[in-house]
């Protein structure tokens, strides 16, 4: 039986990944960033805890552990998502442009290092560092278990969704870094794309949900099943492109339908359809998009200056 490859050996085989990780973890910077990040998340968790317990006491006269736990968990995940959205592009937007700016790009291009190894090394080192931040915050997420109201699958779903988000944003950052060759430009393009993706999809979801709500409560049930399918798919596409709506709807299906992997949608004529949970579609879509952007980045880098 073949032995599985040692992951540390695989990293060491990519000189760029090794160099980037060494550089990132050297000195007090990595420790300071990690500590600062945990202090922010922990501080935020404490504020959320105090606010939710206070609200729970003032409305029901007692602390509803489940509500507090779920709200705490959601807040920590939302905070992580926010940080990932801001940190990942900042790390990757200088990946290739930094080589141009430090005048080391030509040196790398005249070595035998394949373009894909350069891109992968840059991306991997960023993903590894962001993963470290996410893993370090798991104990804070787990505080929610003390109150109840959160299941283990929710942690997995949150982690996979955050990972897919980091991968796409990281790849996007490297792509713009390779095409613009200037860190400032790459940062602007990456943040604008990220904001565009998050804001536009969120707005689209809001519009589609409001149509759905007004249709249900307005008693306008003259829409056909085919029309309902269109609306469902349209809403599904936008929900599954936005990390926040993906997390919220996946959690909703998990709680109300007790299924982490699928949900059942009931049409107005009583017929039903089983569809995959949004986090699955989201993760697959983001990973496929990441792979396409990665491939395109390698192509761009392989082009010889004319």
């Amino acid at each position, binding site marked *: 039986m073949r032995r599985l490859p040692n992951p540390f050996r695989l990293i*060491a085989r990519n*000189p760029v990944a*090794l*160099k980037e990780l*060494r*550089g990132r973890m*050297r000195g007090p910077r990595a420790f300071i960033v990690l500590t600062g990040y945990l202090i922010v998340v922990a501080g935020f968790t404490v504020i959320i805890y105090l606010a939710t317990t206070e609200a729970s006491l003032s409305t029901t006269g007692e602390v509803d552990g489940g509500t507090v736990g779920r709200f705490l968990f959601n807040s920590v995940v939302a905070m992580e998502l926010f940080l990932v959205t801001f940190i990942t592009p900042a790390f990757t937007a200088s990946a290739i442009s930094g080589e141009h700016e*430090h*005048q*080391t790009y*030509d*040196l*790398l*291009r*005249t*070595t*035998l*290092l394949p373009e894909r190894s350069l891109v992968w090394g840059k991306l991997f080192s960023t993903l590894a560092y962001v993963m470290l931040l996410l893993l370090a915050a798991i104990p804070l997420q787990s505080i929610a278990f003390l109150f109840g109201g959160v299941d283990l699958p929710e942690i997995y779903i949150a982690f996979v969704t955050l990972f897919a988000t980091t991968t796409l944003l990281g790849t996007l950052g490297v792509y713009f870094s390779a095409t613009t060759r200037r860190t400032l430009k790459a940062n602007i393009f990456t943040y604008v794309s990220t904001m565009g993706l998050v804001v536009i999809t969120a707005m689209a979801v809001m519009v589609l949900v409001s149509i759905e709500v007004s249709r249900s409560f307005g008693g306008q049930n003259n829409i056909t099943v085919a029309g309902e399918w269109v609306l469902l798919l349209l809403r599904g596409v936008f929900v599954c492109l936005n990390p926040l709506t993906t997390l919220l709807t996946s959690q909703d299906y998990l709680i109300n339908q007790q299924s982490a992997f699928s949900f059942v949608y009931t049409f107005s004529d009583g017929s039903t359809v089983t569809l995959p949970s949004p986090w699955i579609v989201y993760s697959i879509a983001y990973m496929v998009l990441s792979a396409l952007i990665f491939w395109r980045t390698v192509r761009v880098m392989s082009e*010889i*200056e*004319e």
Partner: protein
Amino acid sequence: MSDLGTPPVEEEVFSADEHVAAENLAAVSALRTEIDETDLIIETRGLNKRYGKLHAVKDLTLQVPKGAIYGFVGPNGAGKTSTMRMLTTLMRPTSGEAHINGFSVTKDPREVRRSIGYMPDFFGVYEDMKVWEYLDFFAACYEIPEGQRPGLIRDLLELVELSHRRDDMVDKLSRGMKQRLCLARTLAHDPAVLILDEPASGLDPRARVEIRELLIELAKMGKTIFFSSHILADVSEICTHIGILEAGEMVMQGPIKELRKQLSPHRTIVVTLLNRPDEAKQALNLIAGVQNIHDLEPEDGKPRLKIEFTGEDTGISEMLQALMTKGIPVVNFAEEASDLEDVFMKVTKGIVT
């Protein structure tokens, strides 16, 4: 411990430098005679590079024999860097062909990269790395197996005399040291050809001398060195071959000795005498090949003659023998080497693109 009793350090270093310089000159002379002019390691034919309307490199035919130290000379904007970028596979030629070590720069870029070590005209060092990590990183990029790298790094640092700075951060090195480190990097995969863009640019005199010595050392190890420079003194001292580029065109190239001969058809010999200059002129005029004899300004009252001569070394020997036979007291008798600057001024027109 006291330093009393030790010889003056400056003096010792100076004499050591002089000794090294003499050794280098001898090494370059030896290289100049050993090179097979037909065994080309870098060859371009009709190489062109256009940037829009600007024709940066025009029908360039470059011929660099194996083992040569080739000085690629030209004013700023002549097209030296564009040529080097095409040779190093960083830029695609508009037309024409270029081969390094038998591999086409457009069809076999990977093999070309395996054959060359490239140092651009900027440092290009990662400041947040240690010296050994920098070399280890590039050795890995050149696919040197992990187990071989520690020994390789030790040898490279020894060669560029940076062993004592192995664990220092790169940003702590002086400019000259960084340049030497860059040179060590180019050698990580033991390439046949080194392509160096202005390797001595911006360095202080000592660092320039050190780089020159290093290049000669590398040539002695069998490397072909192709470097650009506008410091003619460097080129004239260490090169076996030169190519002069102006406005994208090669105006002259070949072995440095031959170029000097072509551009200065006669040789110049300067003789310093104690006295009897007229008798000396008569004796010298009888030697075949002597074209003209001019009087130069006397030096400390001693008459000096400048002889223009076309012929071989035997004729020069006959001149000295004729003076000796007549009993004319000779203080100094030496051939004047034509300055590369003269060669450069003669063949270039000062055109800058």
